[in-house]
């Protein structure tokens, strides 16, 4: 069997049904092997689109997304997506073509040292120099991408390896002596965690993306409800706890709710679960949760103790650890509700006193927050929401109350503008019947809008809701607050007509400029089941609040 066919058969063994990719010279034998149609290949318009689609697919399903691109620029164009997937722990497998082994190192046409370039932005990567190693490498790539802390794996396949012949035998198992993720948390540590939780007066559960990756939303909810402990989510953790639950504090961090940040500040115990104390969460570490002890549950030992001194570390899979922890806590027979009554009342007061709010005047400029609320209501809270990066992302996080894990797909760690639209396409490929909406900014959408052609070609009814403020809004907000209103390089005064743009691509273009137009436009977009771009022309100078300036603490929080 040819190497290209070995690859296809290996992917089938891994249960791959869809690949996102873009062809080229060095990868052609593999595209040719896919011509039989055994695996669906979604032809993207740019390799960055392909890799974000794979991320969207993976985030919406938990299964690895697969990318197939050529050598040289094909490889370098996936670097942003790989970095994004590494930061946000997203399982993807990226296969790149490479020039033939005989010319590697000779500056051949479309040659790039992609294994060297991507070493620091992949969980692991491979150059397959012998067709004999191909099947085993693919097996390992999927195993590494999807186990432990998930992440991106790149496999570089020279053209002569794709065309060489070898017998196909897919390994049953992998044996990597250097890679043995810890799944079960230390029993003694879990018992001590239960004791610390039982002794706490003002505990907070601080839950991140790890809850979603490990499928532990049910366990997190049980933990919150059993121990009557308020829960806050990171941006990556949204949907890991119901965003409408009475114990929910909202998102924490730079643009988190007053209740979430105040509760963290006042807490005597913070239980970090699959979260990594990112600087957008902690702000100034010296002033972060000064009165709290920390329990930190994470599958990645290097995340523990990296930013914050942890009193009780537990290395392990979140779901596994929470199950054991729940057993310990259930055996305690405690009146949690009674003991936490004062704390819960205090938290409730903060929530009531400082809600997220805005005032939409019926005839005034359209407010982006209002649009997000309308999207939430029009979809009954059941859509898959992807976002780009910037103000719209924060408003989407604040006003679309996700109740399900894998419902909110955003670029957290890397902050990649242009992520949301291709991610929405990938999610739609995975879940054809879902309503998938990319809440976008006009700046971000322009970075990857060429994938409109992909959405139209494959009949993927994604909705792009552009909160169009004709500027790079988040940067402009920083300029307003911290650079004396010197709006350097943030005005998008020349922009396409997004309605015509959509129509030019064969998609549906809609526009709303006033409050009363928002709902009908959204309902039309959901009804047509075609790719739709909605141009919501919103107030340019609207800002995201609350805001804790970068490097600040809760005492620096701006409310308006």
């Amino acid at each position, binding site marked *: 069997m040819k190497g290209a066919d070995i690859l296809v058969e290996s992917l089938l063994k891994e249960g791959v049904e869809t690949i996102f990719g873009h062809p080229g010279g060095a990868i052609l034998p593999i595209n040719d092997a896919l011509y039989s149609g055994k695996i669906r290949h979604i032809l993207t318009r740019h390799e960055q689109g392909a890799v974000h689609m794979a991320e969207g697919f993976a985030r919406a399903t938990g299964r690895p997304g697969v990318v197939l691109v050529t050598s040289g620029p094909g490889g370098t164009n996936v670097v942003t997506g790989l970095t994004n997937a590494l930061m946000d722990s997203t399982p993807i497998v990226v296969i790149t073509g490479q020039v033939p082994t005989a010319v590697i190192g000779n500056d051949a046409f479309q040659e790039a040292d992609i294994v060297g370039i991507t*070493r620091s932005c992949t969980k692991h990567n491979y150059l397959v120099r012998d067709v004999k190693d191909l099947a085993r490498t693919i097996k390992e790539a999927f195993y590494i991408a999807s186990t432990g802390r998930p992440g991106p794996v790149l496999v570089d396949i020279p053209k002569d390896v794709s065309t060489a012949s070898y017998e196909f035998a897919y390994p049953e198992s992998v044996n990597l002596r250097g890679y043995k993720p810890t799944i079960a948390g230390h029993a003694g540590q879990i018992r001590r965690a239960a004791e610390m939780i039982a002794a706490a007066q003002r505990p907070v559960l601080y839950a991140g993306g790890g809850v979603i990756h490990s499928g532990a939303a049910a366990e997190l909810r049980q933990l919150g409800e059993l121990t009557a402990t308020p829960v806050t989510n990171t941006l990556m953790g949204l949907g890991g706890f119901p965003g409408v639950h009475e114990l929910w504090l909202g998102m924490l961090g730079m643009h988190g709710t007053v209740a979430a940040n105040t509760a963290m500040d006042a807490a005597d115990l913070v239980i970090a679960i699959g979260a990594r104390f990112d600087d957008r969460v902690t702000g100034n570490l010296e002033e972060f949760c000064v009165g709290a002890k920390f329990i930190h549950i994470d599958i990645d030992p290097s995340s523990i103790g990296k930013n914050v001194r942890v009193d*009780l*570390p537990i290395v392990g899979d979140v779901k596994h650890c929470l199950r054991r922890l729940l057993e310990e806590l259930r055996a305690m027979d405690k009146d949690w509700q009674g003991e936490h009554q004062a704390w819960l009342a205090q938290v409730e007061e903060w929530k009531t006193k400082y809600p997220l709010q805005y005032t939409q005047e019926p005839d005034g400029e359209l407010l982006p927050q209002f649009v997000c609320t309308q999207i939430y209501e029009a979809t009954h809270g059941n859509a898959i929401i992807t976002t780009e990066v910037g103000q719209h992302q924060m408003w989407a996080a604040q006003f679309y109350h996700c109740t399900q894990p894998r419902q909110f797909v955003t670029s957290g760690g890397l902050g990649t503008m242009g992520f949301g639209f291709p991610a929405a396409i990938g999610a739609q490929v995975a879940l054809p019947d879902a309503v998938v909406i990319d809440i976008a900014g006009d700046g971000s959408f322009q970075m990857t809008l060429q994938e409109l052609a992909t959405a139209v070609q494959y009949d993927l009814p994604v909705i792009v809701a552009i909160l169009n403020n004709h500027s790079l809004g988040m940067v402009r907000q920083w300029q307003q607050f911290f650079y004396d209103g010197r709006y350097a390089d943030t005005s998008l005064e020349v922009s396409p007509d997004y309605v015509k743009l959509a129509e030019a691509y064969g998609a549906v273009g809609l526009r709303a400029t006033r409050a009363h137009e928002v709902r009908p436009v959204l309902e039309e977009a959901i009804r047509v089941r075609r790719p739709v771009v909605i141009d919501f022309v919103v107030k340019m100078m609207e800002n995201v609040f609350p805001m804790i300036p970068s490097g600040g603490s809760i005492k620096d929080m701006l409310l308006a």
Partner: protein
Amino acid sequence: MLSYNDAVRRHTFAVLVENKFGVLGRITGLFSARGFNIESLSVAETEDPTVSRITLVTEGDAKVLEQVHKQLNKLIDVIKVTDLSEESHVDRELVLIKVNTEAETRAEVLRIADIFRGKIVDVTPKTYILEVTGDEGKIQAVIDLLKPLGIKELVRTGKIAIARGQRML
């Protein structure tokens, strides 16, 4: 409970890795990406040809050293990381020093070589090459003594280290 100490210390790590191309690049890339220092590094195959052993000397406070340890462990091609500074170990370095030898200094160089149990491995009318093996203190001492006599060139292997007693990595 972890306790952090802000004092900067120098630690020696023994790192067993897969003997594959590119692995050293992953290690050095990790150090530069995370802003860790490499004071010295030496690498070669072990008794098992599929495994290479790296001895790596790095410097940092307790938090940095903990991250060095964890981040090394995170690499798929890293089989085992041991912080040898946490236990009793033997470390050695080999240095080759090319020294000026004028008529009046020749005897002195020979005396120093003798004191440090070094060997003269190459002789010309104007130079000696001196080979010395030892721990960091000894190597530094011999360099300090030879410097006034005129060191023309010097090369060090970097430290290698092994745990004392029956313990094996």
